[in-house]
């Protein structure tokens, strides 16, 4: 098992394509997206069942610790402008 950083980014669904593009530009091609989430935060409640869309999505990315700083740097401006949440934790990647 290798130690990695486990990054969770919760944003509005329509932001996801651009965030993935940004991550890809940083050479990060491994990600998992959980869609259709409800949520609440500073900008009030967000639900997925409105006619105009409006749900959240969560992008899970596992990266080596060395890459963490760079990911945070590119993600932070998006969160600043659009709101959202980014959590970082420790985990071990089971090598297969």
């Amino acid at each position, binding site marked *: 098992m290798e130690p990695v950083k486990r990054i969770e980014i919760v944003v509005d669904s329509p932001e996801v394509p651009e965030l993935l593009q940004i991550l890809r530009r940083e050479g990060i091609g491994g990600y998992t997206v959980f869609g259709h989430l409800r949520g609440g935060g500073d900008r009030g409640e967000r639900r997925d*069942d409105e006619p105009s869309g409006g749900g959240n999505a969560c992008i899970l990315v596992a990266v080596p610790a060395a890459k963490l700083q760079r990911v945070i740097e590119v993600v932070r401006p998006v969160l600043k402008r659009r709101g959202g949440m980014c959590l970082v934790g420790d985990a071990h990647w089971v090598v297969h």
Partner: protein
Amino acid sequence: MDLSLIASNLLNPPVLFFALGALAHFLRSDLEIPQPLPKFFSLYLLLAIGFKGGSELHESGLGGPVLGTLGAAVGMAAFVPLWTYAILRRRLDAANAAAVAATYGSISAVTFIAASAFLAQLGVASSGYMVAAMALMESPAIIIGITLARRAGGGTPRTAGMPVDGGWSHLLRDAFANGSVLVLSGALLIGYATGSSGKEALAPFTDGIFRGMLCLFLLDMGLVSARRVGSSRELGLFPVAFAVLVPLANAALGIAIALWLGLGQGDALLFTALCASASYIAVPAALRLALPEANPGLYVTMALALTFPFNIVVGLPLYMAAIQRIWS
């Protein structure tokens, strides 16, 4: 005003299903219509209404008042955000004023559909090209609203700091390549191109089950807009008054233009419904990305919880009564 108009509007299954949805919310029922079902219903409605409009346009041709009406439609879609912005700016910051202005400049396809159903019930004819007018009115207000916000210093281009794409190309895409705009106008062109053979082949789908699908969608709209009525109480007096009075003003403008264009009563009602309605699908979807500083809790709530039910329940018979009185 003729009370039978109100009754025949209210005794419509779609309007009653809207009320049932709202009732379910107020009884705190666990009824819910989860995604992607609402998306399916609205996709269906846009496809069907677009296609039917296109087929009828094929039959009627582009002569007569068609081009004038389409021009007037685009004109109203541009004028409404401008005049309402001037008023909104007194109470709201630039981003929110621009967002609300864009919302009211654009249209609600379901209000249009409800107006058509209302006409069908009254036995009043209308023209297929009004769907083209609707398609043309969806997007301009988005462009104008965002331009207003940017001029006022807000509306940070979506990609600030992200050299992914130019800000304006993004904006045009959000406005014109928006999913609902595309399905509506695409289906319109397809209906136009395939003419009467296409019309016949799709009739059971686009006509037969149309009213029923509308009932399902309005059941959901009742749930969703009743949920937002709670938040509308927190909005304060100004937005609530705006959400009722501005549609009335736009409807009056619409009726005047329809008269001037020489439209029939049915087309006049459809045009008026377009002017009076506000967008809660296409515009919010675009603004969430292009104007994140604006609060969807304001502009979506106004369009969805106030203006939409007002138009559906009270507005349509009111506008029709006015049209009947003026036209006769």
